Structure formats: C-alpha cells, structure tokens
C-alpha cells in the first residue's frame, strides 16, 4: 500500500468548515490513479496532505506505511523530499536556474534521491541528462537557454524529469496538462505514463478534465470520496 488515508478531516484554519472529510482511500504500489474533481474541490488540499505540507485535523495519512500525520514538520519535509515527486499546472521551474539545475534540485534537498540518481547514472547531472533525453528534450541545445524561454510543453516535461530524478516512490501531478494544448497534452500524458511504468512509480494524477481518466488504472471522483463536497460551498453536511 503506497497511500492509505483513514478517517481524515482537514480544515485550513481551525474553526472553519472541513474542506476534506475522507473515510478511506487506498492506493497500491505501482498504481496509476486519476483523481477527478472540479477546481476548488480540494485536489490541491489532498496533495498537500499527502505531501506532508499540512496535517489532518483528525485521522491518519500513511505514505509508504509511514504515518506522516504524526511526524514533526522537519521530518515531513524530508520525507516529501525523499519519496515524492511533484508536477504542477504551470510555473514548475525556478526561473533563475538552468534546466539542468532545475532537474537536479531534489537531489540537493534529499540525500536519498542524490544517491539513487548517482547509482543509476553516475551523477545527478548524468541522470538528469538521461531523463531529459527520454522525455524528448535534447539537453545539448536547450541547456544553455534560460528556462523561461522554454515552451510550456517543454517546461512541463522538465518538471517530469525533476519529479522522476532519484526515483521517488510516488509522483503527484496537479492539473499538469491544463496549460497545454490538445496535441501537447496527449504527448505529455504518454511520456508521463511511460516513465512512471518504466520506473515503477505510483502516480496520482488530479484533473478537472474527466476525458483524461480513461488512460489510468483507476479513477476516483473526489466529490464522491469527500463527504464534505466542497463543490457546494457554504453547505453544511
């Protein structure tokens, strides 16, 4: 079991209405799961919980069998750095770093991922280069350019490389295709799935675009999962 949520309640501020109230969610290792829900339904909040950025008000969140809801903040941050890769909707890259430095960034915060990248390719930089090539980015011609000059499609692929480097067990992608056009989106999904399969990584993919759900092993509707459907603001359960 890579993710296990048990009777979790969460509110951003104490005293406010719970935005998430999930009785049970289980994801097995290697599974590719599509989480659908309109914007504002709590997808990002769920990811914050799973990423250990915030703690639930009640209940337990287990990632890789570890109860991250009981960990102190520093350990949660380290846990996230070691085991989880993220891809966001857009602006995934640190604008003042090169493509290479963006990709190897997780290896600077996680010793585990540094070592795994090193074991795999000799050095984080070599591993970054390998991943970028696999993702259809030719590093030689792109490395010199500032990342802000890359197209959004290219930026998202760099973000995948960054999420994959050092082989974390879980990748969470939050609306990663919303800023892409039809053609790029297809290519992006294909590349993401391929890479996750190849690395044996579990994938949590959240999007409001239900059409994409068919490409995944399993689809979960957050509105059904979450008993406090935030899609109906102001309404008490």
């Amino acid at each position, binding site marked *: 079991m890579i993710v296990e949520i048990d009777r979790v309640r969460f509110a951003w501020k104490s005293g406010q209405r719970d935005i998430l109230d999930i009785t049970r969610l289980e994801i097995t290792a290697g599974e590719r799961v599509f989480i659908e829900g309109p914007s504002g339904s709590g997808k990002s909040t769920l990811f914050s919980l799973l990423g250990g950025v915030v703690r639930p008000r009640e209940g337990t969140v287990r990632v890789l069998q570890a109860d991250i809801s009981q960990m102190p903040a520093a350990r949660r941050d380290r846990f996230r750095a070691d085991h989880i890769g993220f891809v966001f909707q857009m602006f*995934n890259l640190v604008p003042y770093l090169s493509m290479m430095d963006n990709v190897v960034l997780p290896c600077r915060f996680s010793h585990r991922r540094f070592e795994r990248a090193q074991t795999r390719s000799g050095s984080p930089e070599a591993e970054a280069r390998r991943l970028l090539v696999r993702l259809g980015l030719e590093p030689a011609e792109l490395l010199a350019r500032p990342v802000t000059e890359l197209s959004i499609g290219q930026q998202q692929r760099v973000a995948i490389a960054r999420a994959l480097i050092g082989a974390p067990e879980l990748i969470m992608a939050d609306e990663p295709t919303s800023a892409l056009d039809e053609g790029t989106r297809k290519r992006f999904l294909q590349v993401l799935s391929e890479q996750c399969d190849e690395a044996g990584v579990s994938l949590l993919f959240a999007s409001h675009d239900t059409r994409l759900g068919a490409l995944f092993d399993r689809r979960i509707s957050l509105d059904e999962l979450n008993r406090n459907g935030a899609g109906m603001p102001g309404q008490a359960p």
Partner: protein
Amino acid sequence: MAMVRLALRSVFSRRVTAGLTLLAIAISVAMLLGVEKVRRDARGAFANTISGTDLVVGARSGAIQLLLYSVFRIGNATNNISWETYQDIGGFPRVLWTVPISLGDSHRGFRVMGTSSAYFEHYRYARTETLQFGSGGPFVDVFDAVLGAEVADRLGYALEDRIIVSHGAGDVSFVEHDDKPFRVAGILRPTGTPVDRTVHVSVQGFTAMHVDWMAGAPMPGLAITADEARGMDLTPKTITAFLVGLDRKIAIFDVQRRINDYSEEPVLAIIPGVALQELWDLMSVAENLLRFVSAMVVATGLLGMLTVILSSLEARRREMAVLRSVGARPLHVFALFMSEAMVFALVGAAAGVVLLYVALLVGQPIVAREFGLHLPIALPGPGDWWIIAAVVAAGTAAGAVPAIRAYRLSLADGLSMRI
C-alpha cells in the same frame, strides 16, 4: 550553503534592479569609508606637520587661530609682535632656539614666509624628519628664496629663477613687489606638510620688500632699489610669530606661563600638540555629524535593498512553492532570503571598497592640489574592516524582515500556487 548558491543565482537573474540596489549600497559604503579615511588622514597630516617645536608664540588671539596661521598657513594673523619682544623672549632661560615667522605676502597663490636659516635646521615634521634640500641650500643673500617642493613643481621653477612676490595673501594680488625680485636659492624635498606650499625668504628680505612702504602701501615718490635696500638696516620691526625650542621639555609649562605673563606686549604662547587637540575637539562635532550623515546614507542604501527584496516577494510565491515541493523546508526559504540580503550587502560593500579606491586614484591629486591633503592609497585598516563588517552584518540582519515574511508565506502557501 546550497541556499547561498540559489541566492546568488536569484540575485544575478535580476541584474538590473539588483545592480541599482548594489550601486546604492556601494556608493553609501564608499562614502562612509571615504569620510572616515579623510578624517583619519587629515588628522594624521595635521599631527605630522609640526614636531620638535615646544612653543609657538604670536600676538594674543586664540590658540587655534595662532596655530592655524603660523603652522598651517590657514587664515591670517590679527596682529604682529615686535622684534624687541622676539629678542627678549629669545633670551629667556631654558630657551634654546627661536625661529621668526613673517607672513602676509604671497607668490601666485602660495604663501610667502619670512624666516631665518634656523628654520631649516630646527623645523621637524612627521615626528623626527628634518627639512631636506632637493637642490640648492638655505638663503645666502637678502633676496634669496627657498621653495617648497610643490611650489617648484607646480610653477616649474628651478634654481636661479627669479620670482616676484605679491603683496597680500590672496590668490590674486594687484600690488607686486616687482622692483625686488627673489632668486631661487634652494628647493626642498616633499614633506606632505604646508611647507611644500610655502615660499621661504629671510626676514631681512621680507623687510626689504616693504622698506619703501608705509601703512600697507608703497610710499609715493620714495622708491628704494634692491641694491640700495641691501645696504640698509633690514632688521624687521615686527614679525608675525615665532617658534621656540627649549633645552628641557619639562620646562614647557614654566616658559609658556612666563611668556603669557610678558608685560611689555600682549603675546600668546601655545604648545602645538595641545592646540591641535583643542582643534580636534572643535572639529569632532562636525566630524561626528559627517559620520552620522554617512551612516544614514548606508541605512538608506540598505532600506532600498529591503524594498527590492520585499517587493519581489509576492511574485516569488510560486518559486517558493516549487522549492517546497522539491523538499525545501520553510527554514530553507528563510535562509534563501537571508542569503539574498547577505549577497547584496557583501557584494555592495565590496563594490563600495572598489569604488572608494577608484575615487581615491582619481581624486588624490585633486585633493592634494586643492586642499594640500595627501591621501595615501593603502589597504583598508582595522577600522575600515569594522565598518565593512558592520554594514554586511546590518544588511544581512535587515534581510530577516523579508525572510520572516517569506517563511510565513511559504508555511501558509505550502504547495498551493496562489496567484
């Protein structure tokens, strides 16, 4: 350490605003260090100007005024003292030597000082240095002159050249002693003191220039040539001041009191070091004000830096979320912004030091020419390092303001990209 690298990149990516901010800090640091340097060097130069002289005696006025006009050639004497008084005091017990000083004339902007050959023997500067002749020697004839190094250099004079002295101490004079030219008999080596900017003549020569004058103007119908003057009694009636050397230092206060109690004429004897200290006390108010203003300029520079970092904060919330997602803790974000402030302060201070030295290279000859102050170009002293360290520390500490804000933001935002 990783955060410092990130901070460097981040600052570099905003070259234009960062550059301007750095420039503001650099200028302020250069100004603070510059003020401190000028203050220190000016003190050093003043303190090094006269030594070996136990007392300076002149007409009764203020101690500082007497010191300024007799030794530093700044300002003018209000009154003269008589030659009899000079002779009289020269005969006091414990007095080893006296050197007369007559002022009031000039040569093309440089002060002309009437004195005796003993001046070249007894005058000391920079504690123990004596005056050295670069060429020639002391006066031989009544109409001989000895030039300070800068006078000769700036006006291009060599030995045996003839110079004409102007009446009055101003830069521009309308009355010239052109009937009695002086021969350049000697040129002194540079000393870094007002001696370099002085034309020395004998008191006899000084008297001779004015022998056919009365009440500050040439007497109509009476023209005495240089040769005629040579035959006359050229003992001056008055002099401006004189230097006194004693055989025993311990007697300074006794002799000073005796001179100040001298009943024939109101005279004032000062101890150069003591008068210099009085001058510093007077100047310290202005100095401290100048330091305060410079410190305020540095504070303004650092405030500018704070503004730049703080105003970038909103736009950088996404960047912070990305960093959090790859494993950065809020403390890392805090460190990133602290490091940016440190980079600004450090690079700004370093640029300020460079700026100061560039300004010194350019300004040194100008300051030397206009103010007679030699600013040696030396490595920063311990005092300078303290100032630099203080600026860097203050800048880094100021970085806590945006850093704490960034810390709170990244804690609140987490991974969500609020736009």
